[in-house]
């Protein structure tokens, strides 16, 4: 632990006794709250060590023990629980040979349970290093652990992408919009047609939720509006919703055979999107 680092973090708060945000910054840097750091926070902010310690132990987000390089959290909220999260957690406990909240002896993985990640429709949910795994079953646990160890979903542990793969289809004719021949980010892309000022052509977007590039056949300006069309039945996919970011109309597709709807902004350069699953908006 570098004393200077901690002092920097503390002084960034400009003398205000913003204990929680100071502790958050320290935790982000060191993955946990070292004892010396808490002592420094106490002396520097003028709060008593007892209070600082009380705050640090009150919030589950803070840890007084070093955490592993990777963090895997399984949701045990009500929805995930009834969808079988218990068995998933049991599997993690068995495979990693630890209790929730503990870290593997090689300091690689910290496994913990959380109480709700707010994506109940996708439960049981497991988040590893910020990557969401939806509808996890006992069998997938092994793969998730492997991927986490190898850091195949981003190893810095700081990435906060909410990524999972979507199966998109046309709301009119119901045919799949997934183009298995064209991969983006290691996943098949979603392909629709779009009408632009320079003519009608294809547009591909990643099926990975969390990534919002639009790849077009034609070159159009970033602020151009695109009219989305189904490549199969030709119907206009424009929905009633307006983009929350830029107010442009949004193109709408069904997700996973109709359990959800994804709307994406029809402006070329806008990443606005709304995903609704089982009535819940993410």
């Amino acid at each position, binding site marked *: 632990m570098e004393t200077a680092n901690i002092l920097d973090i503390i002084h960034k708060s400009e003398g205000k006794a913003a204990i929680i945000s100071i502790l958050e910054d320290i935790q982000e840097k060191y993955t946990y709250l070292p*004892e010396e750091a808490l002592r420094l926070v106490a002396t520097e902010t003028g709060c*008593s060590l007892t209070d600082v310690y009380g705050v640090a132990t009150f919030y589950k987000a803070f840890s007084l023990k070093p955490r592993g390089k990777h963090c895997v959290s399984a949701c045990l909220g009500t929805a995930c629980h009834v969808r079988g999260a218990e068995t998933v957690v049991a599997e993690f406990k068995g495979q990693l040979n630890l209790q929730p909240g503990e870290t593997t002896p090689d300091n690689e993985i910290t496994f913990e349970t959380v109480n709700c990640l707010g994506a109940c429709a996708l439960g049981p949910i497991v988040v590893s290093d910020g990557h969401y795994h939806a509808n996890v079953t006992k069998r997938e646990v092994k793969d998730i652990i492997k991927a986490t160890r190898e850091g195949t979903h981003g190893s810095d542990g700081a990435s906060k992408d909410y990524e999972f793969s979507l199966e998109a289809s046309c709301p009119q004719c119901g045919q799949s919009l997934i183009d298995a021949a064209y991969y983006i980010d290691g996943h098949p892309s979603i392909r629709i047609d779009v009408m632009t000022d320079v003519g009608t052509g294809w547009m591909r977007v990643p099926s990975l939720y969390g990534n919002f590039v639009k790849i077009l056949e034609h070159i159009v300006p970033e602020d151009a509006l695109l009219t989305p069309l189904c490549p199969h039945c030709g119907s206009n996919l424009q929905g009633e919703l307006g983009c929350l970011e830029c107010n442009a109309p949004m193109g709408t597709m069904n997700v996973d055979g109709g359990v959800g709807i994804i709307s994406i902004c029809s402006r070329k350069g806008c990443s606005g999107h709304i995903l609704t699953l089982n009535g819940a908006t993410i």
Partner: protein
Amino acid sequence: MITLTINGLRASVEKGTTILEAARFLGFPIPTLCHHEGLSPYGACRLCVVEIGDGPGARLVSSCTYPAEEGLKVRTASERVIKARRMVIELLLASCPQSKVIQDIASRHNVRQQRFRQEYEDCILCGLCVRMCEEQMMAKAIGFRGRGSGRSIGTPFDIRSDVCRLCGGCMQVCPACQLRCTYTEPDKAVCGGCANLSPPCVEKEQFHDMMCYMSPCVACEIRKD
């Protein structure tokens, strides 16, 4: 001045007076546990419940923290109050039956049994020790840690605190360990043996069950050798 009615008796009190103080001034007894004169009100034990208001709007509040209001109607011993108070006593007995203070309260209210799962906690989280240490001893050596069922009292990192002066104030007010650390001389209220090198408790049978923030206390050290 604020005028309120307690058990039908009108009383005028200074602004900022709590119901508890007003009731005691009029001579109505209200049992308390986490309240201590000289320490700030905390409202943790709920033993001091009273009923305020009328009819369907009547509700139970903790009198030690509720400030007197103009025209407030207070009942300190209505049926509802007694029922709630007995329940609180049962709950206290369920968590810390060995406390002499709680036993005395229970016997005064004729509670002889409790209906909950029996536990043998060392601490009922009344916060008296924390307030004592902070407000009277100006030390802030101990405090609450954790939350929910994991909440506990102690020093940061569970090691001997640099700011603790071994005054024994925390143990003196503690309803759960008071008896233990007064050892054989309850009237002396605090033993303080740890501080004057003649700890009487080393001889005591239940030495290892003792809870003492003075760790490592002189007594413990002597016992070890």
